[in-house]
């Protein structure tokens, strides 16, 4: 989350060209948004949306032809940290009846337990 904020404000602090800062100004808020949503256990997997964004940060310097090494290093640092943080998996504290896939799968914890309750 903080990394997204850094992307958002780094261009102003470090004085990048308009093209580079536009990129950071678009990707930064997106990364921050997904990170905030992923704080809650129920929507934890939203963090995975940040993977393609981090990948984009790796190739963006070539595609957009960055002329600024500080910007390049900053983008790479953010991309690497975002990917590393994706692997941090806090302990599961709650049960969600099988989670989101349970909406389209059958034989899920929620339907099993609902069936048991009916028999009691």
């Amino acid at each position, binding site marked *: 989350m903080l990394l997204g904020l850094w992307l958002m404000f780094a261009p102003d602090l470090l004085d990048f060209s308009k093209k580079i800062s536009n990129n950071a100004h678009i990707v930064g*808020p997106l990364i921050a948004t997904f990170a905030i949503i992923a704080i809650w256990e129920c929507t934890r997997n939203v963090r995975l949306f940040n993977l393609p964004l981090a990948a984009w940060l790796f190739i963006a310097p070539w595609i957009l032809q960055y002329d600024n090494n500080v910007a390049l290093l900053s983008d790479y640092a953010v991309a690497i940290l975002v990917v590393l943080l994706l692997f941090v998996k806090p302990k599961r504290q709650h*049960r*969600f*009846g099988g989670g989101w896939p349970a909406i389209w799968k059958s034989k899920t914890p*929620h339907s099993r337990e609902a069936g048991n309750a009916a028999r009691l």
Partner: protein
Amino acid sequence: MANDEIPPGWDYNPASWSQRMPIIVLAIIGFLIAAYLSLYQFGILSAVWEPFFGNGSITILNSPISHALPIPDAALGAFGYLVDAVAGAVGGTKRWKTMPWIVVFFGIAIGPLGFVSVMLVVFQPVLFDAWCTLCLVTAVISVVMIGPSMDEVLASMQYLKRIKQSGKSLWRGFWGYKDVIDKVN
């Protein structure tokens, strides 16, 4: 019985007041800030509070995008937060089952509001080279609201799935008809 309100396969009730109250409070704060900003956009207030970015707020609140629609964007935002607060407050603590329609509506109301706010945050620097403190605050609020409200939507969706599996009418279950509520857990 509190136990009876927990969805099957869960260990807490996502529709309990302790789960919903923080979201409602956030929505009300968002509504108040957005209402304040729209007072400026309607020309009722002549200045707006901006501690960090100089003329940023003025630039953003008078930008073409903020007036792209007949109603200024802050007024639309205020309306959005109000809808969120009301949709968050309607219904009892078992509404994931008794009123799936309001839970799903609540989820749909929360999602786009967050999406639009993030879009507006992107537009601020890219198109206008300016930031607006209170606009950012409301955007953060709308994004923060998404995560904690989705668990309730999930519980309702799983309930609808169980209705489908049991062969009962999904339509009647969605609107909370009693015959479905009594037969499906």
